[in-house]
């Protein structure tokens, strides 16, 4: 050994078998790199989007015509429950955390997240939690109590005569969401500490990109809202398997406790699902309007306001359960209040576009579509906050229309906008803009055709969660329209997949900064190296990369503006 030279050692290294973590697959499995994990989150989320989408198509096939026979009642319950659960817990949250993982460290000029290994843990927990939940189909016992799993329906037995959910259906949901909850807790801890502690020199809180702001608020909401769901689920598991009585009215419990616990998670949750989408749109609009964002401070702090308020409105999901009228008045007021910071954002976005040199590339198109669709969703949400109106319309298809305008018209369009915007950064390749525009218009038409008629169905009295309906109630045409629309959305998704595959194979080289953008993630190679930046950038304004590219008109020289 004494005579060994450096040269000899090098040969030994060359000859030895590759470690598992050095093989192609092994590298993905063992990675702790935030960019790889981000992509894995995105791919996983998109996979579950396809699963949830097929469930949606099954629902719409069953409901296309009156007296449908495609699904039997029990299967229908499982399908609609898994559709909602999959879309919320396994598509939107993973995809948004995927963007957050990939983009946030780059945006704030960090080399990785604060806890890279915990990041990997969170991803794998998510993947296995998702597989665990979907595996319930193999047993024919998928969750069937709605994505809100209301007790006492989800109890083992409610009372002596009535079998509620005697099989494992609810258990899959309760255990699955608890696993996914732990995954989200680790993810949000990571975001909070990363954003607070790893920002590049000069990037003060009020110079942080808005997407980072919104991920920060989302993470706080997850940290403080998820415990309610965990507790609700554990109590229900104790009821089901240990003989406790938390949600059993006859034995001193109270089913409304479930609703209170669930919605004090559930309402913050819907803002968890939309805030990062606000963030994506707030990044894209200024770049494609060639202007700085209008009212940065308002957008950032209205996001924080929404975060706080979202903990005070939960019982607007419970107007019909017979709360005291003083409570109803309180929750109606707080719900209406939350529309104010939301509207502030919309006006800021409009002012950002106003007078800009707009480029209608795919990301911009989807972002504009987001504003229009989210506006409709917000407005009919405000209508639902009116208690007497809600009495009439709650648990009807009107609510389904609201959900989908905010979540599909809102979050999903923003997610597509984000993919079209950042794909060049992820891969170094441009996506096909023409095909992307086709994707946009097909999706836009499909979504309005599907979800707009649902307002009318709701007003005409069609309840949600019914597996079929008789022919003589005047709902036939509207349902047929909605089903056609759903398949049009499906075509849009296929166009999107074709575009991804095509661009991966033969996309034009994108260069590092194809959009002439403003934020730090573009100030590095596409795709970025493992260490992100050769040198950690120094930040002097809200648009550090713009400053670097246009030193003569750099933002920080124009002190009055900020």
């Amino acid at each position: 050994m004494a005579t060994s030279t450096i040269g000899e050692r090098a040969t030994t290294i060359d000859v030895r078998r590759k470690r598992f973590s050095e093989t192609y697959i092994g590298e993905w499995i063992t990675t702790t790199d935030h960019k790889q994990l981000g992509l894995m989150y995105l791919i996983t989320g998109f996979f579950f989007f396809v699963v949830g989408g097929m469930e949606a198509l099954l629902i719409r096939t069953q409901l296309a015509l009156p007296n449908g026979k495609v699904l039997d009642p029990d299967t229908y319950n499982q399908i609609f429950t898994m559709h909602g659960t999959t879309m919320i817990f396994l598509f939107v949250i993973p995809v948004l955390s995927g963007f957050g993982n990939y983009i946030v460290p780059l945006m704030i000029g960090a080399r990785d997240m604060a806890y890279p290994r915990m990041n990997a843990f969170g991803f794998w927990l998510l993947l296995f939690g998702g597989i665990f939940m979907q595996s319930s189909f193999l047993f024919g016992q998928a969750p069937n109590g709605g994505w809100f799993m209301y007790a006492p329906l989800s109890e083992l037995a409610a009372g002596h005569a009535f079998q509620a959910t005697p099989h494992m259906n609810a258990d899959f949901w309760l255990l699955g969401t608890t696993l996914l909850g732990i995954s989200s807790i680790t993810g949000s801890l990571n975001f909070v500490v990363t954003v607070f502690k790893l920002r590049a020199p000069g990037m003060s809180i009020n110079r942080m990109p808005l997407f980072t702001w919104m991920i920060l608020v989302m993470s706080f909401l997850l940290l403080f809202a998820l415990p309610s769901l965990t507790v609700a689920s554990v109590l229900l598991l104790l009821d089901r398997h240990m003989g406790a009585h938390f949600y059993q009215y006859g034995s001193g419990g109270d089913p409304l406790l479930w609703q209170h616990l669930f919605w004090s998670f559930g309402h913050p949750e819907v803002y968890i699902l939309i805030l990062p989408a606000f963030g994506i749109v707030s990044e894209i609009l200024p770049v494609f309007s060639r202007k700085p964002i209008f009212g940065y401070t308002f957008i950032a702090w209205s996001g924080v306001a929404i975060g706080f308020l979202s903990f005070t409105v939960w019982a607007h999901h419970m107007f019909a359960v017979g709360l005291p009228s003083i409570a109803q008045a309180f929750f109606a007021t707080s719900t209406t209040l939350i529309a104010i910071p939301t509207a502030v954002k919309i006006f800021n976005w409009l002012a950002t576009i106003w007078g800009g040199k707009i480029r209608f590339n795919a990301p911009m198109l989807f972002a504009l579509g987001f504003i229009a669709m989210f506006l409709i969703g917000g407005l009919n949400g405000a209508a639902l906050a009116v208690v007497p109106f809600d009495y009439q319309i709650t648990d009807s298809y009107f609510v389904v229309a609201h959900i989908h305008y905010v979540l599909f018209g809102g979050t999903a369009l923003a997610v597509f906008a984000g993919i079209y915007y950042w794909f060049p950064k992820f891969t170094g390749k441009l996506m096909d803009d023409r095909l992307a525009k086709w994707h946009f218009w097909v999706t836009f038409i499909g979504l309005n055709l599907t979800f707009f008629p649902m307002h009318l169905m709701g007003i005409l009295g069609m309840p949600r969660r019914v597996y079929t309906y008789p022919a003589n109630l005047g709902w036939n045409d509207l349902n047929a329209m909605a089903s056609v629309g759903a398949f049009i959305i499906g075509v849009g998704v296929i166009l999107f997949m074709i575009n991804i595959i095509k661009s991966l194979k033969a996309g034009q080289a994108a260069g590092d900064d194809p959009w002439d953008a403003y934020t730090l993630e573009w100030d590095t190679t596409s795709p970025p190296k493992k260490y992100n930046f050769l040198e950690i950038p120094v930040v002097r304004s809200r648009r550090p990369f713009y400053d670097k590219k246009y030193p003569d008109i750099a933002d920080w020289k124009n002190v009055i503006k900020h």
Partner: protein
Amino acid sequence: MSVAHGEQVRVLEEEHGQVGERSLNWWGMVFFIASEALIFANLIAAYLYLEIRNNNDIWQLPHSNLFLPLLNTAILLGSSVSVHFAGTGIRKGNVRQLIIGLSVTIFLGACFLVGLAYEWTSLIADEHFSISSSIFGSAFFTLTGFHGLHVTIGAIFLAVCLVRATKGHFSKQQHFAVQAAEMYWHFVDVVWLFVVTLVYFVPLFR
């Protein structure tokens, strides 16, 4: 490559003067505990909600023997002292003090769990009072059980630290695991004060 990341973390921490007490990991632990605290906040809220909604039931244990809960409170408070003793030890670089402090704390934690188990079995066997006998039964066993689970987790956490301490993993500069375990243990103790007040003492004043 993770070196590059670690390097940045180190530089940022040194620049902002955050070596030691308020490290990156310290912040992570703070937010984790905050989230855990909300689990108990939700449990307690559920307890109070059920009590308000249903005060026909008896919200009281079948016996009013407070000896065991008081003893257990004393044990846990004592263990907070001993875990602090362990922490001060390693902050001065004294591994022996760390090992003694951790051992005492784990022992006291085990005593607490034995006490809880004894109380549970005597309630179930002698008084026929169980999780399914009433809504108070459900609430009582769930709340104390959740807390007992957290004591168990904390004790395992401390035990891992103890093993690592005997292997010489900790020094004056490097002992975050001990710090985290200490924070967690104090948290679990504070929670107990809420639990014991709610299920044992508040009923006395009704």
